[in-house]
C-alpha cells in the first residue's frame, strides 16, 4: 500500500488544483464559467499530452476525435430519445457511442499513419480533420453539413429544468471527471512498462527497437487512449453543453492549436504540465478576450515558436530539473 501511495502521489498536486477550481467555481458567484473553461483546457491538455507528450509525435488532426465524440453523444440522444424510461441512460449510451467511434476512427487512422515516421505521420494526420469532415458533409452522413440539433430531445427526456442543469452544470462536472481520469491514466502509463517504452521510442525510435520494444504497438496504445479521451471531451463539453453539432465547428483546427499550446507551455510529457498549461492559457485567453478579443492566437503563435526554440521542456519540464534530488521530486512529475 505504501508503495502504491508513493507511486501515485504525483497525482496529489493535480487533484488539489482541480479541487480548488471546483471550489472557486461553486462558491464564488460568477466564476463557474471561467472555472469550467479552465477545466476544459486542462482536460484537453491531459488528453493531448498522452499522445504528443509521451510519444513525441504530433497529430494535427486531433480535433477530429473530439468531433467524432460529439457526434457519438448526439447520435445517442437523437436515436434513443424516443425510448421511454431510459432517462440518464441515453447519456450513458451517448458516451459509449463516443468512445466506440473515437476508438474506431483512431484505429483506422492509426493503422495507416502510425507505421510512418514523424514527418510522414504529421502529414497523414493533417488531412484527418479535413478528410473526415468532408466525408460527413460530402456523403451527407448524419445530416451532412446541416448538422444535428437535439435540444428538443434533451428537453423531452429530462424535462426543461433538468436538461438545463445538464448543460450548465453536469456537463462541466463530467469534464472535471475526464480531466481527473486522464491524469490518472497518464501517471499509470508513466509508471508502467508502457511509459518506459514510450519514453524510449520518443528519445530514439531505432535504439528502442533494438532494445526489443514494439514501437508501433505502443504508439497505437497512446494514440487510441488520447483519442478516446478527446471523444469523451467532445461528448461532454460540446454535445452536452450546447445541444447541437455542426461539422465546421466541431472539426475546427484551432482546438488542435490550443491543445498544442497548452501541452507545450506546460511541458510535454509531464503529468502536471497540462494543468499548468491549461491554467496559463485559459486565464490568458479569458482576460485577453476582454481587452483584445480574438487576439489570443496571434499572441500565442509566436509564443509557441519561442518555447520550442528556447525552452522546449515547458514550464513543468524546467521545474522538474530544479527539484531533481529534492523531496519535491515525487510531486512534480
Amino acid at each position, binding site marked *: 500500500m505504501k508503495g502504491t501511495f508513493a507511486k501515485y502521489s504525483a497525482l496529489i498536486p493535480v487533484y488539489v488544483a482541480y479541487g480548488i477550481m471546483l471550489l472557486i467555481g461553486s462558491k464564488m458567484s460568477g466564476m463557474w464559467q471561467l472555472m469550467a473553461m479552465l477545466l476544459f483546457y486542462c482536460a484537453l491538455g491531459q488528453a493531448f499530452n498522452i499522445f504528443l507528450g509521451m510519444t*513525441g*509525435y*504530433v497529430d*494535427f488532426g486531433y480535433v477530429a476525435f473530439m468531433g467524432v465524440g460529439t457526434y457519438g453523444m448526439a447520435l445517442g440522444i437523437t436515436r434513443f430519445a424516443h425510448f421511454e424510461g431510459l432517462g440518464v441512460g441515453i447519456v450513458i449510451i451517448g458516451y459509449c457511442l463516443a468512445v466506440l467511434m473515437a476508438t474506431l476512427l483512431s484505429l483506422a487512422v492509426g493503422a*495507416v*499513419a502510425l507505421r*510512418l*515516421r*514523424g*514527418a*510522414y505521420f*504529421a*502529414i*497523414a494526420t*493533417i*488531412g*484527418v480533420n*479535413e*478528410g*473526415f469532415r*468532408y*466525408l460527413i*458533409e*460530402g*456523403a*451527407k452522413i448524419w445530416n*451532412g*453539413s446541416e448538422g444535428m440539433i437535439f435540444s428538443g430531445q434533451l428537453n423531452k427526456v429530462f424535462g426543461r429544468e433538468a436538461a438545463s442543469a445538464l448543460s450548465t452544470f453536469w456537463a462541466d462536472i463530467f469534464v472535471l471527471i475526464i480531466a481527473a481520469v486522464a491524469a490518472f491514466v497518464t501517471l499509470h502509463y508513466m509508471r508502467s512498462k508502457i511509459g518506459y517504452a514510450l519514453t524510449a521510442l520518443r528519445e530514439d525510435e531505432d535504439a528502442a527497437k533494438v532494445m526489443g520494444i514494439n514501437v508501433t504497438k505502443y504508439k497505437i496504445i497512446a494514440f487510441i487512449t488520447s483519442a478516446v479521451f478527446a471523444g469523451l471531451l467532445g461528448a461532454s463539453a460540446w454535445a452536452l453543453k450546447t445541444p447541437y453539432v455542426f461539422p465546421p465547428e466541431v472539426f475546427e*483546427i484551432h482546438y488542435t*492549436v490550443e491543445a*498544442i499550446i497548452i501541452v*507545450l507551455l506546460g511541458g510535454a510529457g509531464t503529468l502536471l504540465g497540462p494543468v499548468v498549461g491549461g491554467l496559463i492559457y485559459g486565464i490568458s485567453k479569458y482576460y485577453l478576450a476582454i481587452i483584445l478579443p*480574438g*487576439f489570443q*492566437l*496571434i499572441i500565442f*503563435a*509566436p509564443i*509557441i*515558436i519561442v518555447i*520550442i*526554440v528556447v525552452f*522546449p521542456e515547458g514550464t513543468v519540464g524546467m521545474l522538474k530539473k530544479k527539484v531533481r534530488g529534492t523531496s519535491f521530486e515525487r510531486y512534480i512529475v
Partner: protein
Amino acid sequence: MILNQLIGNLIQGLVLGAIYGMMTMGLSLIFGVLKVVNVGHGAFIMVGAFTSLYLFNGLGIVPILAIPVALIIGLALGFIFYYSAIRRLLNAPELATLLATFAMGVLLEETAKFIFGSEFRGYNWPVSKISLGVTVLPLTKLYACLGSIFIAVLLYFWFNKTRAGTAMRSVVEDSEGARVCGVNVQGVYALSFALGIGLTVTSGVLLTMFIPVGINPYMGGPYTLKAFVIAVLGGLASPYGAFFGGLIFGLLENGSYTIFAMLPHVEPFALTRFFSFLILLIILLIRPTGLLRTK
C-alpha cells in the same frame, strides 16, 4: 461528343494541375534540402493571394506583375523565419520544426485576419476567354498555367546551370559531403528555405489568377492538404516530382469532381476533398517515397 467533353475535362485538369504543381514545389524544395516539413504551407499561399488581391484592387496592378512582388515578399518572409527560428531547430527532434512551421502558419493567418478581416474577397480581372476547340479557357487560367510552367522551367535552369542551384542539389544528396567539398551549407539552407517560401507565396498569386474568389485568411488549409498529397505523390524531396505530381493530382481532382457531380445524394465539392485525403492515405500506405522515381 462525350469524347470532346472528356478531352475538355482533361485539359482543364492539366491546367489546374500545373498550378497545383507549382504550388507544391516550394514544399518539396524545403523538405529536400532541409528535411523540414512546412506544415504552415497553406498560410504562405494565402499571403500570395492577398498580395495579388491588393495590388489589383488597390493599385490596379495586373496579377502577372504581382508575381515578382510576391516572390520578393516570400523571400523576405523566408529569410526572417529561417534566421529567427528554423536555423536553431535543425538539430532538434522532428517535432520541433513541425510545430514551429505550424505556428508560423497560424501567426500569418491570425495576422491576416487582424489586418484584413475574415470576410471572403475576390477580384475580377476582365480578360477574354480563348476557345481550344473542345473547351473554353479564360485567359487568366491560361496565363496562370503558362506562368507555372515558366517558373518550373526557370527552376530547372537554376538547379542545373547555376552555382547556387547546384550547391542546393549537392546538399540534398549529402549534406556532409557537400560541406567537405566547401559548400556553404548554412547559406544553402537559408537560401533554400527562403526560395521555397518565395515559390509558395508566388504560387498564391497564380492560384488567384485561376480562382480569383474566396480569398480569406484561412483559405490555406485545403491547399496545405493538397500540396502534401501532391508532394507525397511526386516524392517528397523532389521539386520536379512535385510538378508532375501536381499534374496528376489536377487530373484526378477534376475527374473525381465530375464523377461525384453525377452521383445523387452527395455534395461533390466536399466529397472531392475527402477523396484527396483518401489518395494521400493510400499512397502513404503503399509507397511513401512517392510514385515517381527520380534517378
